[in-house]
C-alpha cells in the first residue's frame, strides 16, 4: 500500500511552518512579558507540535515512490531513536531520576519529529537530491 493517500498536499507544508513558527514566536513573547501564563503557554506548545506534525506529514514538491521509500527509512530511524529514548526515560523513572518531569511527552514527540526530518534530509542529500540538477544528461 502506498502512503501517498495518508499524506497531506504540498501546500500544507507552508501552513505547518507558519503555525509552528507563529506559535514559537508568540510563546516567546508571552513568556518574556508574563512568566505566569502556564495554560496559554501549553496551548502554544501544542500548536508548535501540530505545526511541525503537519510539516513532516506534507508531500514534497515532487512526491514519488522513491521519496515514499526514503520516508519509510527515515521513520524507521526516528522510531528507533524515540524507542531508545523512551526506554531510557523508563529506566530513569525506575531509579526515581525524574529530571524530565511533565515535559517528557512533548519532548518525545518533538524528538520524533526532529529526528525524522533530519534523517529524511540526510537520506535525500545522500541520494543527491540537493545536488545541482543536470536535466539534460543523456
Amino acid at each position, binding site marked *: 500500500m502506498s502512503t501517498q493517500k495518508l499524506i497531506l498536499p504540498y501546500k500544507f507544508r507552508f501552513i505547518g511552518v507558519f503555525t509552528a513558527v507563529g506559535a514559537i514566536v508568540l510563546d516567546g513573547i508571552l513568556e518574556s512579558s508574563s512568566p505566569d501564563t502556564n495554560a496559554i503557554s501549553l496551548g502554544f506548545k501544542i500548536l508548535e507540535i501540530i505545526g511541525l506534525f503537519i510539516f513532516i506529514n506534507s508531500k514534497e514538491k*515532487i512526491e*514519488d*515512490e*522513491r*521519496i515514499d*521509500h526514503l520516508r519509510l527509512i527515515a521513520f524507521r530511524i526516528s522510531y528507533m531513536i524515540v524507542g531508545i529514548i523512551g526506554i531510557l526515560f523508563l529506566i530513569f523513572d525506575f531509579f526515581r531520576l525524574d529530571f524530565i518531569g511533565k515535559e517528557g511527552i512533548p519532548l518525545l514527540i518533538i524528538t520524533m519529529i526532529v529526528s525524522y526530518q533530519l534523517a529524511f534530509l540526510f537520506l535525500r542529500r545522500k*541520494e*543527491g*537530491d540537493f545536488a545541482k*540538477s543536470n*536535466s*539534460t*544528461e*543523456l
Partner: protein
Amino acid sequence: MKTTVKVERAKINITQDDLAKAVGVSRQTINSIETNRYAPSTILSLKIARYFNTTVDELFKLEETD
C-alpha cells in the same frame, strides 16, 4: 540488479528529465534507478518498459548477489 535504462534512453536520445516526466516521477528517481541505488516498483518498471516499447525482463536483470 543490472539495468539498461540508460542504454535505452541513449538509443532514443532523451534526457533523464524527459523520461521522468513521461513516467511521472522525479529526475532524481530515474538517476537513482540508472545508478542502481533504487529498485523501482513493479508499476514503475512496467511504465518504463512500456515507454521504451520493451519488457521489464529486458530492462532489469537479476544478479547473483540479489
